[in-house]
Structure formats: structure tokens, C-alpha cells
């Protein structure tokens, strides 16, 4: 039984402005096994964030099934933790307060939850910042806090919605390196949405490539890179470049039909 099973997922909605029915997700199926890092890649507006929202339980699909650990998804749950592009950190809680939030919700007593939180803060490299407030941290640190907050709940799958889109290019590279290190140390199951081909190939074990709206799975590409991975090596690796080129060509035909970002209602 796979950790995450998506079967013939379809999502339609009515555009409030034009009052037409839009098909955001056409027919998407794939699975993610335990301990895998899977990137979901596609042009802007292809519905990849919609798929994430459905898996997270924030939206309901029109048809098709989503199963996590064999059970259907019915709403948000700590089993499917989410790392948001906007960070979504609670500004009135300290760094520590943010990380223990999920543990508090589950009723884990203070004695137990603080050591757990500490462990994950160390994992993401934020030890020493427990008493700070999110706005006192840099963008990169804030996102690492977002990751720690989710991992502290040990979810079945960690959903990441273009988490590095809001940080600058250098920080992004560092965060990708860090995320890879965290993944290789802990092996959570990761569902990572992005439109950045190089990011997807660097981070993931497999890349699910989506077509434009109404989206379908064009192909699932297995990344031939060995772990542990570092950007320095990836940039010089012919396997890496080949995979990126392959996917780039695959998507090139679709680029001209990509939907502009500001109409993207996923």
C-alpha cells in the first residue's frame, strides 16, 4: 500500500468572473511510496497547487480519489502537513511556539513536546532562536521554521507548495541543499510542488510532469542522481543536465499555452 495514492483526480470549478466551468485538473493519477521525495512539476496554472490543496484537504475534488495510508482524504489533518509558500507562521508565537503547535493540538504534554521541538529545530538549524518571533527571522529561516513545524508532527506525507518561491535565489539554493540534507537524514515522504525544473530534478527521486490545464500526467521521470546530493556536484553532473534538458524539451511545447499567473486560481 502506497503512502499516497491519487487516482483519476479531476477538479472543475466555476470562474466567478466569466461564469464558465473551468477544468483545473483533468485526469491525474500517481502514487508516492514511503520515504520518497516526489516533485510535481508543471507550467503556471496547470493546477498543481490545486492538487496539493486537495491532498491537504483544503479543497474537495470533483471526482477521483485521494488516499493516504489507505484512507480517503476528508479534510486537513496533521497526517498531511503543509509547508506554505507564504510561510504562514503564527506571528504571535515564538519560534518554539510555532514548532510545538501541532504537538499541543494533539495533547502532547509540555514535558514531552519541548524536547521533540528542540530536536527538529536543531535539524533545520534554528537552535538558539527559540524565543524569537517569526518577523525577526530572515526569509530563509522562516521557511526552515515552517518545515520544522510540519516535521515535528511526523506526518505521513509532507506537502510543500512552492515553498522557496518567496526567497531570493541564493537563499533558495541554500534551502534546497538544506532540505535535501534533512530529507536524507530523516526520510519523510515529500510531495513537492514547483514550476522550477532545475529545482525539481535536484530535490526529487521522481518528478511527475504535468501538462497545462486541464492537466494530466505527461510522464513520471525517475531522477538518475545518486544520494547524498549537493548543488556543487549536481551542476557538474551530466546525468543532472540530461534530466533537466529532457524535461525542459517535454514542457517546451506547452510553454506557449501556459496560463498567466494572475489568472491562476489554483
Amino acid at each position, binding site marked *: 500500500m502506497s503512502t499516497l495514492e491519487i487516482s483519476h483526480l479531476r477538479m472543475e470549478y466555476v470562474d466567478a468572473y466569466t461564469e464558465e466551468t473551468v477544468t483545473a485538473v483533468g485526469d491525474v493519477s500517481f502514487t508516492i511510496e514511503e520515504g520518497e521525495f516526489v516533485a510535481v512539476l508543471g507550467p503556471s496554472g496547470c493546477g498543481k497547487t490545486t492538487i496539493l490543496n486537495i491532498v*491537504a484537504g483544503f479543497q474537495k475534488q470533483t471526482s477521483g480519489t485521494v488516499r493516504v495510508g489507505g484512507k480517503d482524504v476528508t479534510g486537513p*489533518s496533521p497526517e498531511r502537513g503543509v509547508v506554505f509558500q*507564504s510561510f*504562514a507562521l503564527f*506571528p504571535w508565537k515564538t519560534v518554539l511556539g510555532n514548532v510545538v503547535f501541532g504537538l499541543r493540538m494533539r495533547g502532547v504534554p509540555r514535558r514531552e513536546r519541548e524536547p521533540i521541538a528542540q530536536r527538529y529545530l536543531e535539524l533545520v538549524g534554528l537552535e538558539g532562536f527559540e524565543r524569537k518571533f517569526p518577523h525577526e527571522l530572515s526569509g530563509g529561516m522562516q521557511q526552515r521554521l515552517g518545515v520544522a513545524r510540519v516535521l515535528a508532527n511526523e506526518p505521513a506525507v509532507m*506537502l510543500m507548495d512552492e515553498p522557496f518561491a518567496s526567497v531570493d535565489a541564493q537563499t533558495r539554493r541554500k534551502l534546497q541543499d538544506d532540505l535535501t540534507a534533512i530529507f536524507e537524514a530523516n526520510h519523510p515522504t515529500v510531495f513537492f510542488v514547483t514550476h522550477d525544473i532545475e529545482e525539481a530534478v535536484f530535490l526529487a527521486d521522481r518528478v511527475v510532469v504535468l501538462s497545462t490545464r486541464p492537466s494530466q500526467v505527461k510522464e513520471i521521470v525517475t531522477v538518475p542522481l545518486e544520494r547524498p546530493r549537493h548543488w556543487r556536484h549536481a551542476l557538474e553532473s551530466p546525468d543532472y543536465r540530461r534530466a533537466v534538458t529532457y524535461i525542459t524539451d517535454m514542457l517546451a511545447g506547452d510553454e506557449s499555452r501556459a496560463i498567466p499567473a494572475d489568472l491562476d486560481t489554483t
Partner: protein
Amino acid sequence: MVRTFGPFIPVVLIWWVVAEVGVFPADLFVGPRTVIAEFDELIAKGILPAYLSDSFTRLWTGVLFGLLIGIPAGFIVAMSRWARRLTWPLLLFFQAIADIAWLPIVIVWFGFSLTAVTFVIVYTIVFPLMISIVSGVEEVPRDLIRAARSLGAGRLRVFTDVIVPGALPAVATGIRTGLGYGWRALIAAEIIVGTSGIGFMMFDARRAGVVTGVFIGMIVLGVLWYALDALILAPFERGTIERWGMVRTAEVGR
């Protein structure tokens, strides 16, 4: 400290000079010395403290009820889409009716009484507060609510742990606005209705042609509101909102 009181020194000096020189007629303008002397006398006779406490009691009674009604009502309306749809236009409309305009009808209902004044003050607080809370709750970023839910928070916890802290700046703003209208309504009510209180004191002095009393009343009011704002409201905002990096109103002059 110097920065706060510093600017007032030249003003007081200019005031003193203008009064001494006699630019304005004495029955319309008095200087600091006269004001201070009269001030001391009013304190010694216990008149000023009595008026002050009258005004205060009326204000805080109204404020208390206003908060007790406005905060829960605000959140209840904010959390229900139907309640919001049904009441929002009404809230806007009733907010638009200047609180003081309620005084005549309230006098018809309750006569010239404390109940009448309290009613008006409660009114001035409740509507800005509710409106502020409703828009504040709406503005809590959706991602924060989703984050909480995906961390296992049920509806109640989302309310207590996300919505309430998230809307806190709006609550502070609403209270500040409401209080600003509230004490003004009080003064007007005391002038129109009153038998005691600072507003009454000022108008009474005016009636007697004693401008000193008017000056004292205004200075006392200004100092009190300034103190309230600087010693209670602003620190509260600093302690919560600014500390959390959610500055909503850095410094809106009101």
C-alpha cells in the same frame, strides 16, 4: 520624557506672554497663572475631583458594557457568513448615525439620567468595535487558518489560537476608535443633559462668562486622553501587535 513634554514648554511660554500682554480681552483669554490658581482652588474645594469622577464613572460604565456587548457580538458576526451578510449593512448604517444624534430620543426614553448617557456611550463603542472586529477577522490570512488545520487544530482551537490573536490588532483599533467617539459623546451629553461632570463644568463656566473654567476643562480632557492613549492603549499595542511584527496602525492620529 523630554521629547513628550518638551514641545509644550514653548507653547506655555507663548501662552503666558500672550496673556500678560493682553492681546485678547481678559474675559475671553486667561494666562497660565490664572489657570493654575483656579485649578488649585477647584482641587482644594473638591469640585474638580468630584466632576472628574462623575465623568469617569459614566464613561467607564459605558465602556465596560460596550466591550461586553461589542466583542462577543463582533466575533459572533465575524464567524458566521450569514450573520455577516445580514448585519454588515446595518452595522455600517448605524455606525453612520452620529452617536450624539441618539441623545434626544434617548432622553425621551430615559429622561435626563445616567441610563441615557450610558446608552449613548455604549452605542459609540459597540459599532466601531464590531465593524473593526468583523473586518479584522476577515483579514486573518487564509494560509494561517489552513496551517493550523493541517497541524491538527479543530474549529474551536482555530478560533482561539488563530482568529482571536490574528484579529487582536483590529480589536485594539476598534476600542481606540470607540473610545475616541465615546468620551466626545460624553462631553456633549454632559453639556446638554448634565448636572455634573467635566463637560458640564466647562459649559457652566462659559455660561458664567468665566473662561478659566473652560480652559481648565479642556486641558484636563486633553491630558487625560493623551495619558490614556500613551500609558494604556499604545503600550498594549506595542506589547502585542508590534512585538509580533503585525503593525496595523503605526501611528494614526486620532
